[in-house]
């Protein structure tokens, strides 16, 4: 099945003597190809959900299936392989390596894949071109604007051609215009066939997504959102 299945996922942290239930038995299915937004107040568990989906944080209970792969039954090293093959990360603070150029940052995921050096460059250039950043490929990240850095980060997330892109507040550090551009880019990426799961606080971003999942206190919150379950082809996205 081409889908992501959260099956009764819980995550509990122990801080001192107190137990914090970040996720409480979440069950959820996301079809591959969807563009899903996860919204909710701070501490509602949305970032934890994204980390678990990305194979970065082991849940306390429950299972996560991605294309029938039980992600947390994999060894630590195989889970790294899963991230490389299935997941592209886009972070709020871009998380580019500051001493590497834009193209080197984009190539990073390919450095541990069996891709020849020439092919690495070609792939990275093509990806940078697709996000409109090819002419700045040799610059260091700090010589780019916030929007450009996020484009570079998106290019890095896409260079391995992963089926799923996870975006954690991708516009959190950007102005309105740039946010709009980045959301359009993510929207295009989704239209090209990739699943996108995005955590956001910005209601403006919801108009680009196909489904909105609301969370509160570690649980899914059943509420109506204006854009929930509207297929992307019926949405008026400029």
């Amino acid at each position: 099945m081409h889908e992501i299945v959260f099956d009764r996922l819980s995550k509990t942290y122990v801080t001192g003597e107190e137990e914090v239930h970040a996720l409480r038995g979440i069950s959820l299915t996301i079809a591959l190809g969807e563009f899903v937004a996860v919204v909710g107040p701070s501490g509602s568990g949305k970032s934890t959900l994204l980390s678990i989906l990305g194979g970065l944080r082991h849940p306390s209970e429950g299972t996560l299936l991605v294309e029938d792969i039980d992600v947390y039954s994999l060894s630590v090293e195989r889970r790294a392989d899963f991230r490389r093959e299935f997941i592209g990360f886009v972070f709020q603070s871009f998380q580019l390596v500051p001493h590497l150029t834009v193209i080197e940052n984009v190539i990073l995921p390919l450095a541990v894949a069996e891709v020849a050096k020439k092919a690495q460059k070609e792939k990275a250039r093509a990806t940078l071109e697709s996000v409109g950043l090819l002419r700045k490929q040799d610059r260091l990240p700090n010589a780019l604007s916030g929007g450009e850095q996020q484009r570079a980060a998106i290019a890095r997330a896409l260079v391995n051609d992963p089926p799923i892109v996870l975006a954690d507040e991708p516009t959190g550090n950007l102005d309105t215009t740039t946010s709009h551009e980045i959301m359009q880019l993510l929207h295009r990426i989704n239209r090209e066939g990739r699943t996108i799961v995005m955590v956001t606080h910005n209601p403006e971003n919801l108009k680009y997504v196909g489904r909105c999942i609301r969370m509160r206190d570690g649980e899914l919150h059943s509420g109506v959102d204006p854009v929930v379950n509207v297929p992307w082809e019926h949405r008026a996205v400029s």
Partner: protein
Amino acid sequence: MRLIDIALRNIGRQKGKTAFLVLGLAIAVSTVVTLHSVSERMNAEVSASLDDFGANILILPKSDDLALSYGGMSVSDVAFDVRTLREKDIPLIRTIKNSDNISIVAPKLITAADLWGVRTLVVGVDFSQEKRLKRWWSVRGAFPDKPTEALVGSDVSAKFGLTLNRRMRLAGMDFVVSGILEPTGSQDDGLVFIDLRGAQFIFDKPDQISLIEVAARCYDCPIDELVRQISAALPAAKVTAIKQAIESKMEAMHRFEAFSFGVSGIVLVIGLLVVFANMTASVNQRTREIGIFRAIGYRQRNVITIILTEALVIGTLGGLVGFLVGSAASTLVSPVFGLKEAGGLVAGPVLGLSVALAVLVGLAGSIYPAVKASRLDPDAALRAL
């Protein structure tokens, strides 16, 4: 881009830290190279001078019976007329495979004779060899240079009131005292030394020799091997190594070597700690970078590879610099240690050893930080920022 490129980029961007680490390893390696080279030279030179200082091999005629003590060594007694060594045996000693190790060959003819009615041990020696063999001898007057001159021990001199240039009669022949030995505390004090040929003549033992003392340089050749070779060359002789002399020499030789090893060990441990502290700090500074690597699919072993590659490159540089500095330093400090020859390093093996040592220290100091880095929780590493 490969993992090695990532490691090289990281080394390149942290020039100050890299230089510090290279310097730290270079100091450690150069110290080891200097001490190693100086101790090698010192051992060789000390060994050479110690080997000339007294005999370490004794050659006696094969004899089962009766023995007299000579300087703590066993020698045949009055019965030495029965079986003796011959003068023609002497050159044979220098025909052995390791003849270069033979430093001094001192033949002796030992005979008891009457001196003013008292039985006294008279030793015929080759004074040119004896002088070199017994460097501790202090002679009042001069060594005999004529067959009719004698050197007397301090006890003999005192007992008979012998002074320099006094005449004395041995086996019907007059001898002049040319020199008197200062007290040595050994049996030499009670002996009369005359020229070997003169002794053979007056005691009517032409060509005969009672024993041969040999000083061999055994630094780079086991003494037992020399004994075996001499035994083969002189089948009629009993060749014995004087173990006590050898052991004390070996002890003296290896004392500085032990000191060098000790200091080298300490310096290498300090080098290891420097690498460990720096690599740990470096890993801590790169938490975010490592978190990114892990998040985008780098395996733990990929992270370890990056950090150990850095250590390998830094270690190689440290080894090369350390070798060059150490070679120069050993040349400079050689005179301080009173060494006649400076340096004398065999470049190839020592260079290889230097690089291997620095790489080993670099890797050993980086293993824990590398493993620690690989185990960073990527989620926590990225969230913490």
